[in-house]
């Protein structure tokens, strides 16, 4: 593959060297370090338009901070690993210069933007269709009239239909920007972009809404309106997705509480801190992996999850055996004691890990986003949703299908009877509390991917968690599921209209009013047995 690439590059270089002139390329490279950022951006752009095959290598080195200036003013590419330098223009060996003798060629956003466009121009004819597609997208974003010629050439050579479409759209954007093509060409360009109908198309069309040609201007206006209209529906879907995603976070945070508070009736104010412990476990796991087995980083969350469950669950069992056990029948006093536990856990984490945020990385499969139609779905949110459902399902199975689950339900429904039947209620209590706490730890693993990992992590979720459990109806984990998603989606539908702050206030007022209507939550246990 590499050999082939080099061959193509050499061929390209040979073909164009005669036309563009080798001297030109050398001058441009030599000009890179000079002047300010704006000058540098200009040189980069010209390098891109030069079509010189060697330019790609230089530009890639520049983007990677590997292009340096030697003490004698020569521009060299320095290989990161060996420190060996070669001439940027001709590839001559320059030895291994001392790192501090080299001067950096600094970048800023303007230069980086120019680099992206220029690299795109140079990879329009790359053999890898994926690279060509990304190059075409860059060209669409740039909408640069000076690229029309290159785009035409690429279009003629292109065989991949997907790439071809984007190339055509990129050309259309450039054509519109230049405003010099015939009316028919411009109108065709508008139609093409209107068909694309996404944010990129909007960005390409919006600047030419006041085009000189009135027919074009009208067409652009209409196209923009159409796109906006079509995107409205997608916007709705996007909101639902945001709501589901927020709901999944709420569910994860609350479902452990649905066990300790909803089922066992313990007002566990340390729940948030158990979530925090899960997040810190993830941090520790990643630290160890970073230090000892960097190859496993992709698995760090999978390794952290069971550990987080054990750590938080273990602390939970300790809290139950040490404190809560003495307080059954005095549920409100568990509030006082667990509040004390929460203060101590927070301070303990602060003493051990420091008060500031810890860096928990996202494995590559948790990063980035993909498009579903006009809707953008980020991977981390998707996986968190999947994880939330998985945790919920496993919990259901444990509660409904296993012996320990049966014992848990028996003890919470009738402690005395369960004890008479030979169930060791103390052990079951500890396990139930441990289960709820362990799930809080799992939530911490997920939350470490989207939120701060700091001693305050838990405080941010405790109030919301109680709201979800109570809104759904304490004692019913299905209620917690429904509650989490209802609140999540409602919140995300209110946010665009009311703003984030007012939206949240409205949700809280909504909960207060809802409880008036259903004083025992969404999924209340009905019947006359309740108040007996």
């Amino acid at each position: 593959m590499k050999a082939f690439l080099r061959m193509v590059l050499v061929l390209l270089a040979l073909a164009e060297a005669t036309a563009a002139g080798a001297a030109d390329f050398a001058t441009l490279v030599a000009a890179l370090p000079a002047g300010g950022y704006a000058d540098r951006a200009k040189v980069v752009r010209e390098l891109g338009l030069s079509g010189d095959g060697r330019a790609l290598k230089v530009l890639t080195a520049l983007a990677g901070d590997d292009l340096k200036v030697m003490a004698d003013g020569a521009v060299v590419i320095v290989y990161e690993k060996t420190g060996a330098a070669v001439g940027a223009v001709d590839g001559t060996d320059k030895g291994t210069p001392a790192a501090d003798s080299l001067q950096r060629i600094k970048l800023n956003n303007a230069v980086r933007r120019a680099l992206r466009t220029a690299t795109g121009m140079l990879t329009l004819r790359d053999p890898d269709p994926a690279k060509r597609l990304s190059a075409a997208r860059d060209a669409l974003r740039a909408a640069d009239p000076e690229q029309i010629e290159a785009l035409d050439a690429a279009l003629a050579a292109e065989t991949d239909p997907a790439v071809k479409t984007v190339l055509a759209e990129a050309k259309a954007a450039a054509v519109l920007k230049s405003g010099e093509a015939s009316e028919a060409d411009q109108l065709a360009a508008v139609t093409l972009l209107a068909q694309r109908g996404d944010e990129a198309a909007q960005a390409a069309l919006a600047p030419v809404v006041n085009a000189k040609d009135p027919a074009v201007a009208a067409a652009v206006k209409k196209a923009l309106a159409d796109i906006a209209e079509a995107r409205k529906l997608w916007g709705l879907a996007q909101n639902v997705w945001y709501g589901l995603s927020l709901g999944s976070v709420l569910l994860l945070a609350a479902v452990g509480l649905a066990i300790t508070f909803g089922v066992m009736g313990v007002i566990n104010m340390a729940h948030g801190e158990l979530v925090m412990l899960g997040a810190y476990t993830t941090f520790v796991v990643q630290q160890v992996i970073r230090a000892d087995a960097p190859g496993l980083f992709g698995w760090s969350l999978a390794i952290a999850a069971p550990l987080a469950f054990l750590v938080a669950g273990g602390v939970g069992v300790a809290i139950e055996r040490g404190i809560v056990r003495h307080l059954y029948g005095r549920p409100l006093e568990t509030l006082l004691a667990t509040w004390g536990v929460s203060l101590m856990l927070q301070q303990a984490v602060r003493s051990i890990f420091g008060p500031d945020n810890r860096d928990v990385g996202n494995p590559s499969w948790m990063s980035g986003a993909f498009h579903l139609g006009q809707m953008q779905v980020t991977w981390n949110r998707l996986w968190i949703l999947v994880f939330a459902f998985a945790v919920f399902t496993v919990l259901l199975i444990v509660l409904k299908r296993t012996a320990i689950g049966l014992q848990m339900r028996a003890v919470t429904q009738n402690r005395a009877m369960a004890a008479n039947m030979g169930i060791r209620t103390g052990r079951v209590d500890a396990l139930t509390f441990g289960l709820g706490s362990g799930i809080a730890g799992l939530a911490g693993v997920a939350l470490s991917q989207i939120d701060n990992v700091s001693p305050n992590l838990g405080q941010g979720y405790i109030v919301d968690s109680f709201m979800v459990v109570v809104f759904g109806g304490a004692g019913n984990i299905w209620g917690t599921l429904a509650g989490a998603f209802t609140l999540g989606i409602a919140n995300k539908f209110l946010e665009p209209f009311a703003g984030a702050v007012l939206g949240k206030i409205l949700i809280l007022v909504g909960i207060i009013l809802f409880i008036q209507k259903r004083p025992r939550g969404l999924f209340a246990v009905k019947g006359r047995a309740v108040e007996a």
Partner: protein
Amino acid sequence: MGRPEKRLIDRRLGIFLAGLFLLTVAVPVGNLWMAGQPVPTYLVALIGKYLCYALLAVALDLVWGYCGILSLGHGAFFALGGYAMGMYLMREIGARGVYANPVLPDFMVFIGWKELPWYWYGFDLFPFALLMVLLVPGVLAFVFGWFAFRSRVTGVYLSIITQAMTYALLLAFFRNDMGFGGNNGLTDFKDILGFDLARPATKVGLMMLSAVALAGGLILARWVTTSRLGKVLVCVRDAESRTRFLGYRVEHYKLFIFTLSAMMAGVAGALYVPQVGIINPSEFSPANSIEIVIWVALGGRGTLVGAALGAILVAAAKTILTGALPEAWLYALGALFILVTIALPTGVLGALEGGIARLKRPAPAQEVEA
């Protein structure tokens, strides 16, 4: 549980009131008139603050201890009373603000408002502000309670919606658009009724006023709880259904005590603000309201005096520990909460009285705890 005493001022309350009286005499003497100032001004403001917390705790004990309503939102009533007083104090600054605007408080000039919003009208008058100190928390409690109690929201559900209430208010008061100074709240007060807030005499006066308010609050609470109404409240706490079947409108009783308690909390807030010099939305934070519950539980629920004692103990512990163990005070406070719940189920007051009783009358051997 001992038999409830019927006298308005029982021994427990009597001792506490006597202590309070000694304090109100000793502090001004020690601060203003004695050579060497054995009571520094710093301590005066601190005591005043504790007394306000104590009144707030008594207010919560009234609803939680006697009627079983665990409010996790009592900080909201306290803060509203505080804001009402703060609004008066802001108007009292007048043209002495940094922009010298005679009407608008600094923060309004600062965010570019041109005229006073209607809900700030009248707060330049002290009596109006006092009325609002009672009315605003009272009306909020009445409306909130009317809905909640009528719908028979009880137990944790009620607790959580009171928490939702204070959380919603927290977010609302954070908003600068609300016209209450946003996150910064109301601050930089100059004087109250013409008395310079920075003068020690004013501080002593406010502290004495707080003591009087606490004494008044305790006596009022004691009077209410020893009345027939107080007995019905305990009925509601212990057997709500039975109380209904006897023909009592439970929701009216709850509403009465909830509103009364909110107004007491409002008074506590109003006295608190001039003494600490600031009122801002963090007073609405759910954690603050939970802390009030902790004071009451720690002191002894359903004893009134215990609640006041609990508030003073925790606040004093915080003052001492944040200074003496700045890096570790949370461990100490957390451990204190855990130990008290497990070792002293009747609260500090219960343990204290139990201890005294044991001292007076040596317990038979079998009663000694194993």
